[in-house]
């Protein structure tokens, strides 16, 4: 399948430090992509580059084969929902909705009104007077009422309570079923949103280290739980992301091919279970950091 959005060898430098380094990825259309990374990994910068708001220091971003930056049809087809829209601060909710209706070509007025009602957002309050959660909800209204081909959400659930987060996930599922909209979501709440993601892009210190469909991503991720003596031989194995031992029992977080070892381990009574996405992300990030430290 041809990709809707592509970034090729994109780098962004701020002063002497690299926020993004040689990022290359193709985002498939009609899918929900998760952009995962630790704090400061470069998720927000990457999303801004993809939306044409920041020029990369090098590399190119294309949307439907056309360069994104300063390309009016491409930029109006990409909607970035920031986690904090500071330029909205002094405007009332109704003014912001009016601006959206004027400048966003895919704006669906009825949908916007119904979402405003659903989230109970006061039309006459200024953005800066809204609670953190309500500000996030207004961003969600912008992202969902604008029927753009590609919507990028940067931490859309910041400040939302559990009920509203669930509502957001439901809305995303509704939005994507039966439409060819592409959505990229960066989030820290990985477990909650894991079921949404059809593809995962992992960003570590500005580098996209993995980008694949979620099933393949999780296919080789396991917990191995068994006798410490049986599992000791794997210490130092690069596929082991993390190890915990207690009272003669060891739990290994494993990421990699297990075909050769599987039968033997099962004979030894080692329990093999899937590793949840959030844990996999945490262990991969930690390992990446420790590898980097070793290199340094």
């Amino acid at each position, binding site marked *: 399948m041809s990709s809707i959005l592509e970034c090729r060898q994109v780098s962004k430098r701020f002063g002497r430090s690299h926020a993004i380094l040689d990022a290359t990825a193709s985002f498939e259309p009609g899918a929900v992509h998760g952009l995962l990374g630790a704090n400061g990994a470069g998720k927000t910068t990457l999303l801004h580059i993809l939306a*044409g*708001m920041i020029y990369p220091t090098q590399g190119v971003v294309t949307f439907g084969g056309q360069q994104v930056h300063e390309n*009016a049809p491409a930029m109006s087809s990409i909607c970035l929902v920031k986690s*904090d829209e500071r*330029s909205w601060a002094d405007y009332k909710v109704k003014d912001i909705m009016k601006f959206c209706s004027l400048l966003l070509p895919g704006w669906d007025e009825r949908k916007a009104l119904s979402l405003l009602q659903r989230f109970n957002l006061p039309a006459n309050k200024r953005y800066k007077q809204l609670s953190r959660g309500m500000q996030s909800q207004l961003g969600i209204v912008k992202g969902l009422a604008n029927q753009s081909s590609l919507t990028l959400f940067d931490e859309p659930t910041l400040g939302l309570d559990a009920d509203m987060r669930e509502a957001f996930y439901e809305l995303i599922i509704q939005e994507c079923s039966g439409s060819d909209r592409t959505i990229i979501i960066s989030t820290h709440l990985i477990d909650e949103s894991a079921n949404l993601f059809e593809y995962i892009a992992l960003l570590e210190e500005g580098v996209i280290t993995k980008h694949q469909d979620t099933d393949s991503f999780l296919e080789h991720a396991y917990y191995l739980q068994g006798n410490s003596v049986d599992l000791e031989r794997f210490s130092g194995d690069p596929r082991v992301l993390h190890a915990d031992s207690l009272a003669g029992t060891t739990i290994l977080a494993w990421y990699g091919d297990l075909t050769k070892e599987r039968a033997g381990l099962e004979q030894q009574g080692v329990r093999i279970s899937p590793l949840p996405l959030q844990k996999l992300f945490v262990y991969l990030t930690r390992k990446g950091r420790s590898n980097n430290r070793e290199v340094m």
Partner: protein
Amino acid sequence: MATYRNTMRFMWQDSYKALRVFLAVLLLVDIGLLVFQIKWPHLVDNPSNNFYSPNYGAIGIFTLVSGLLTATVTFPLMLSLGSTRKNYIAGVLSYGVISSAGLALFQTLVAYGGTALLELWGQLSESAPASFLTLWYTQFTIYLLIFLLFTLLGAIFYRYGTMPGLIAIAGLIFILFFTANTSGGTGLTDKDISGWILLQAVHYLLGVCVLLAALLWLIIRRATVRTY
């Protein structure tokens, strides 16, 4: 064309409330000053034909603030709503020209209307204001200059940060000081606005506006939208 039309509608929507309130307050103050000039002229220490002169400063300050906000708020706002930098510049320049022309027209009408009313009440003017067109053209150019200058300064602050912004202000002060000195100390600011006939200087200022617009484009064309 539809994009440009929507950009202009956005600009209007963004500014009309502030513009409406500002002009209403200004008009009320002018009416008050007019009443004072007619009823208690000894309380108003001003030649009768100049009772509306505070308007120039007020409109100048309004234009200055508009320019700063256009660079620091409207730019990220428009780009976050899918506009390109080219659309932004087209919108800002059009807005600058239209609002400066409108404000200049407002002030020219106030000057002419006020003078006519004073004459009606027997308050003779010391001198008639410059011709309608000259007065309008002069003010239009000055408001446009202020708008573009402060949009440019705002853009420098927005794109490069505080220190380069302060350096730009220092540079501006230096240029103003230099040009005031080379004009032999008889700067335009010393002139009475109603007697202002230095049309050639105004033409030059219009040229400066074109230069400022070009500089603004150079700064905006690869400007980064802040991530917050």
